[in-house]
């Protein structure tokens, strides 16, 4: 999936160019240099280095004897690489929920039996095999110009009304995911289509406004920052947060009727070469210390039920309450991966998109 890889690259460019250029791999050698291969831990993640680095550093500080290697892969590469070499990584972290779920459903995951796993809330895990350790809403990002001219759309209904009323003025100024090229965009589309039949009206309105279709959040953020687009729909909130903070022209809106919440899932493969280290890392990741790091040092959103305050799921829930709709961690995700389902949805999407205007 070149698109996702490019997305990672673009995003890295945007956020922390130096680190991203250095390597897609982070390595922390064991303290005494010559560590035995048994004292290694290999993590494959679809989580960019700036976000994962604080976690890795903290873990390495706690366990300096473990040589820690982190490979940043895009979600599909991560999935395929695992299937071809299931004994390579000790831990998989990915935001592609359906793919992670499919691996666990097929019995590729090793259960974690620890106190932290026991305490982990039921809505954020599947069996003891998949653990959701972040809480990332899907948001809208808009430029100041749009708000000044048309007011701030706070919900999907507002957005639809805005597009229907001022479609001509916004022609080419709206950007959203291309569900054909982006896995994330596809899974949001399938979730939204499930939630509301009016989603298709929105797609039609996008078509009418000749909305641009992007493959990644980074691409959309770039266009928004440059002023090419005025409104981006369905951006990954955690990535958008940094861009919005550094650019006063941009503002982020979590829709108040409903906002999807995606969560990164971690699992230990059954054939992990260093399962005990992997357990230790996952325990750390869902433990209070790791989660506090996620809350304070990253925009990913901590899930731990004991944590409160900025950067936690609890705080987000308090602010947006009913509107947050975490994508359910259940067998419904398997339907997302069904080939016919995908073809049917994309066909419908194309049809609706070209209903009003012309196909892009």
């Amino acid at each position, binding site marked *: 999936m070149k698109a996702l890889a490019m997305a990672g690259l673009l995003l890295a460019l945007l956020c922390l160019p130096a680190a991203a250029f250095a390597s897609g791999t982070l390595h922390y050698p064991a303290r005494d240099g010559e560590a035995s291969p048994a004292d290694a831990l290999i993590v494959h993640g679809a989580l960019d280095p700036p976000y994962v680095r604080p976690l890795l550093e903290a873990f390495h500080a706690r366990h300096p004897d473990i040589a820690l290697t982190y490979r940043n892969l895009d979600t599909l590469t991560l999935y395929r690489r695992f299937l071809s070499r299931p004994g390579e990584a000790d831990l998989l972290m990915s935001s592609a929920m359906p793919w992670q779920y499919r691996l666990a459903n*097929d*019995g590729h995951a090793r259960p974690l039996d620890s106190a932290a796993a026991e305490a982990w809330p039921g809505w954020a895990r599947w*069996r003891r095999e998949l653990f959701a350790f972040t809480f990332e809403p899907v948001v809208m990002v808009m430029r100041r110009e749009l708000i000044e001219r048309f007011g701030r759309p706070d919900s999907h209904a507002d957005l639809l009304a805005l597009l229907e009323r001022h479609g001509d003025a916004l022609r080419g100024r709206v950007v959203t995911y291309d569900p054909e090229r982006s896995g994330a965009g596809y899974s949001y589309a399938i979730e939204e289509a499930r939630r509301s039949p009016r989603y298709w009206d929105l797609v039609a309105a996008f078509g009418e406004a000749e909305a641009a279709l992007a493959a990644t959040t980074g691409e959309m953020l770039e266009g928004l920052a440059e002023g090419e687009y005025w409104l981006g729909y369905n951006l990954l909130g955690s990535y958008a947060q940094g861009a919005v903070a550094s650019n006063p022209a941009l503002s982020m809106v979590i829709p108040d009727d409903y906002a999807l919440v995606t969560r990164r899932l971690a699992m230990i493969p059954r054939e992990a070469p260093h399962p005990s280290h992997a357990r230790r890392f996952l325990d750390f990741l869902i433990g209070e210390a790791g989660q506090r790091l996620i809350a304070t040092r990253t925009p990913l959103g901590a899930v731990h039920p004991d944590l409160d305050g900025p950067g936690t799921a609890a705080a987000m829930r308090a602010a947006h309450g009913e509107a947050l709709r975490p994508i*359910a961690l259940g*067998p419904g*995700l398997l339907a997302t991966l069904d080939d016919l389902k995908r073809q*049917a949805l994309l066909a419908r999407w194309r049809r609706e998109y070209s209903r009003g205007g012309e196909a892009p």
Partner: protein
Amino acid sequence: MIRRDSLYRRLLTWLLLPLLALGGLMVLQAWLDARRTADRAHDRLLEAATLAIAEQVQWQDDRLWLDLPPAALEMLATDAEERVFYALFDARGRFVTGNAALPPAPEGPAAGDALRYADLEHRGLDLRLGVRGARLEDWRRGERFEVRVAHTREGRERLAAELLRANLAYILGMAALAAALLVLAIRAALAPLTRLRRAIRARDPRTLAPLELPLPRELAELREALNELLARMRRVRANQERFIGDASHQLRTPLAGLTARAELALRQEDPDRWREALETIHAGGTRISRLAVQLLSLTRLNNPEYHPEFARLDLNALARETVRLHWAGCHRDGVDLGVETPATSPAIQGLDWQLEEALGNLIDNARRYGARRITVRVRTEPTILEVEDDGPGIPAERRLLMLRPFHRGSDDPDGSGLGLAIVDGIARTHGARLFLEDAADGRGLRIGLHFPGVGR
């Protein structure tokens, strides 16, 4: 420590063991039931999911098409978070879509659109498979297809365990109740036994009165047996007391006679009288000592603990020897004593002196009752040793009385009344039966010992 055998333990063991086996069976049954119920409940999920999927199957772009409803998969997973698999196959068994190429279910008796179930192992997971065969509801095409769904068994196992737990509590409760009732019932049933034991223990050891207490039938039988034993002991004791009384009476009378004779003689001065008295006293003394000897041997014969050492005896020789001993005395009194023996002599185990004494007693008796002709006879098959006389005989109704000690057929002062009793004792010691019957010619008496078998 080895506990002694007890009725209580026996009853408890033989009632509790079957109860335990029964309980085990019930638990097994409950387990099977729980599994069946859980399977039935969860098979409904498979049924609903296949139906939901089958409804979405269409004909589109010249092929089977499925717009998979996520809810159909979600309904397959309960709180137990089962793993879920689904697949759509066309009429020719080709895989159309799904997340696992699930195998077909074995052809069941119910064909057509009915749901078929199977347990299978897929990639190391234990799965329950549900397969629905269906047909497209289309105007032009009636294409057949098959929806296969499967999920892991955690939910079924959890439900089965829950059901079993509830049932198990019930079964265990019943078992505890049954065991408690059993213990109480056995205690109650065995209580009369304790009462009987106490009643026996509380008795005066000298009394032989029958036990009087109400008991259940089985123990009442025991009580009756005990009472019969006591009654026999009472009779034996009465016999013994009478014997002692008779014996002392028998000894006292001649002793009193001797004393009176001696006193009479002392009042006289004539030495001839003295001599006469001394002779009388001597004769009395001889009789008394003979009586004492007879009492002694009767006491010994009546002792149930008396088991003499038997030797092999030739009855012919014994009969001839006894006749030889008594022949002179009989001849002097003009009594014709004879012996009849068979050609081959029967041999028995016995004591020669006892049998000789028995024969001697019988010969004496016959003489004393006025027989003129006495025959000692040995017979074979059956082995019999008998004495026949031509005396007055004894009427049949009085024959048994004759066996009682100190009972006499006449008022002969020389008879002690112990003769026949002693013969009877000797017969019993030899395991023989004493019989009294009329002599062969209808006159006189025949008394004999009937030996049970020849030799040993």
